[in-house]
């Protein structure tokens, strides 16, 4: 286990190094000259040259990458040219909101997905099963901005049950969490259904039935706990999926997290922020996958970590 973990962490570090390199190359490919961005349209050529010098932009590529990397290792993500603020500070201020939203979305997707999956499996091939699978199919395939705007329009604008976007109270988190969770719920519903069907066909379930246990007891006491284990392990992977989802969902709902930060940065060609958020997201995805592997190991003894 220890050897496995060490190797995985080394791999993770390598992946992140690769990500840092790719995002840095991005800075070179985008034709937004940072010196010009800072200097503004009224600047003289001299001012621009001066800023370029100060930022070290006229040094060779490898030297600049090395400067960026060493700063990164010291926890310095750089500075936004547009927002004129440290990236670390910008991300730090917004990370709690994103984590809160993700936690709420995980709760939402598990509640929706697992319930749908269990009901569909128990009522398999019925109209209930089929309509639930249609719902899950919609969840998996509907673009999140459409779902978000729809929920916002119906429940906030028309019915007035929830605030129209924003942040601050428990009511604010409901719609964005549902939007973000709806996609995952679709997957969980399908996985839970097939996992349940597997379990329901197992000998121990037949034995439980044969013992004369009630249907509810068989399902909730014996089948669900066994079916749910391999699925719980997927939460780690969800974190990665959420990282892309929050860019859209946070923007739709005006949720002050790092997704919204990234979206604004993309629109303003604020490359340092895009690089910073990409790195943070990549770290979360790598950690999430690692977590998923470790959790699977604990819930399913058949898995060997090598």
């Amino acid at each position: 286990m220890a050897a496995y973990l060490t190797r995985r962490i080394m791999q993770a570090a390598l992946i992140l190094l690769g990500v840092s390199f790719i995002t840095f190359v991005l800075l070179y490919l985008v034709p937004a000259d940072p010196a010009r961005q800072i200097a503004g349209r009224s600047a003289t050529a001299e001012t621009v040259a001066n800023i370029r010098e100060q930022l070290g932009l006229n040094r060779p590529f490898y030297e600049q990458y090395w400067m960026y990397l060493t700063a990164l290792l010291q926890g310095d993500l750089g500075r936004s040219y547009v927002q004129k603020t440290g990236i670390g500070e910008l991300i730090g201020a917004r990370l709690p909101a994103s984590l809160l939203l993700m936690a709420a979305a995980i709760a939402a997707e598990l509640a929706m997905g697992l319930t749908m999956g269990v009901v569909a499996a128990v009522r398999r091939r019925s109209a209930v099963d089929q309509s639930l699978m249609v719902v899950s199919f919609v969840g998996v395939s509907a673009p999140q901005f459409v779902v978000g705007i729809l929920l916002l329009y119906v429940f906030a604008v028309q019915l007035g049950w929830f605030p129209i976007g924003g942040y601050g109270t428990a009511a604010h988190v409901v719609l964005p969490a549902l939007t973000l969770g709806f996609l995952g719920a679709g997957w969980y519903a399908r996985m839970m259904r097939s996992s349940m069907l597997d379990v329901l066909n197992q000998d121990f379930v037949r034995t439980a039935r044969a013992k004369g246990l009630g249907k509810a007891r068989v399902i909730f006491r014996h089948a669900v706990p066994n079916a749910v284990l391999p699925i719980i392990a997927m939460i780690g992977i969800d974190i990665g999926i959420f990282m892309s989802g929050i860019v859209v969902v946070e923007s739709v709902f005006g949720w002050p997290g790092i997704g919204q930060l990234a979206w604004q940065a993309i629109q303003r060609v604020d490359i340092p922020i895009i690089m910073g958020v990409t790195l943070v997201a990549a770290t979360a995805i790598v950690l999430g996958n690692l977590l998923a592997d470790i959790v699977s190991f604990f819930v399913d003894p058949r898995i060997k970590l090598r």
Partner: protein
Amino acid sequence: MKKWLLTGVAGAAALALAGTAQADVKQGGSMIVTYKDDVSTLDPAIGYDWQNWSMIKSLFDALMDYKPGTTELVPDLAESYDISADGLVYTFKLRSGVKFHNGRDMTAKDVKYSLDRVANPKTQSPGAGFFGSIKGFDEASSGAASGLSGVEAVDDRTIRITLSRPDATFLHVMALNFASVVPQEEVAKHGTDFGTNPVGTGAFKMTDWTRGQHVVFERNKDYYQKGLPKLDKITFEVGQEPIVALLRLERGEVDIAGDGIPPAKFLATIKDPKFKDQIVEGKQLHTGYVTMNVKMKPFDDVRVRKAVAMSINKDRIVRIINGRAVSANQPLPPLMPGYDTQYKGQTFNIAAAKELLSEAGHGGGFTTELYVANTDPQPRIAQAIQQDLAAIGIKAEIKALGQANVIAAGGEPDQAPMIWSGGMAWIADFPDPSNFYGPILGCGGAVKGGWNWSWYCNKELDERAKKADAMTDPSQTTARIEEWKKIFTSIQDEAPWVPIFNEQRFTIRSSRLDGPAGIFVDPVHIPVHYDYVHAKDAQ
């Protein structure tokens, strides 16, 4: 020659605008303003976008400002000023009793420090170039000198600024945000974070900034202009899409949608009777234009350029953007001094355009490229232009690229034959025609990486422009503006641009708010002159 302008004049001017109804407006109440993007920085030496421009104006003061809702200069921190006969020395007498938000008295030393700071290359101010006419600017901006030798604090209340060349726009420069007065000790304390901890002398002071959520301004009770600002508090909520802001405004949760009415909802909102009294329309110092690169064939021929100018149906383009603009015939916008109301330019006439084109030897038309930013509605506008050009036989291929790419292409001498400026168009930094010439139509801008995308360089006009800007004597103001008027119509006679339209601004506000109409579409305090907004429920 002394031209002291007394405080009383400015005071009277402010009151005249305010009118009697404004004079007895009670202070109090609050408002919520929303924006999509985070506030970038509130450092007046650095902030240079639509959102922070007016916010900075409410936190800071400069020597000069404008009469609210207009483009007319009035002294602000200066009580009066005096210009030497040769136009090279400006002596400003400062108001007494002006305090920074930290309680300290503002003095001439602060003015000197603030101007030195903008010129200092370490500040990386995007506005540094505006101060180029101050003596010692080149030394200061290259880092060779620690400050501007032309700026002296004579005593606590007198600041003397010596120029290296006469500059008729200098008072406008002193009204720019970049010329705002900042306290040295606060800048020293916060360093590069002064932009998030702004301290000025302005009508409001910043009391809270929660990243990604809101910025709060509260009334500066020690503000030198008694009775201002009208509101006790402004909360700027950020991260709100314009469409959401509009919905919230409808529900009374928001008072001003800072980003305006989203294009998709524009017609419906404008026509909705319930918003009738809540929408204010105003002009802005903006022109949208098509450039033709005079260094590239066949646009080196003025007949071809004129034919293009005559072939474009500007009214149709205005309809495409739902009437959010008025069609243009010259580079200057109507709001700008020097706009020629008599000038007609090249009017829409396909037959005449075809004739000119065949005269130039292109009767069979030609193929060219039209560069355009790839965000709506720009490509749609480019398509309209493409159709118009096709009617006279010109086949223009549309190159829709990211804004930065279009700007880069325009800055190359031989890359973009035509560019539609939409989304990147010139909006004046200050209301003087000079600001519409140098960088975008003068020889100085026709350089690699410059903004003169038509690469039009007329040495004779450059000379005339220089002379016009040397007319610093106030008695020459009218003559100077007349000269600028002629410069711009002379340019348009050679048609390096096809001026398409001047954008209008529309501000939507809640019915809770009131104030003189002009301040909601202030041409300088963009988008809204926050100091003069008052809350009806506080009356």
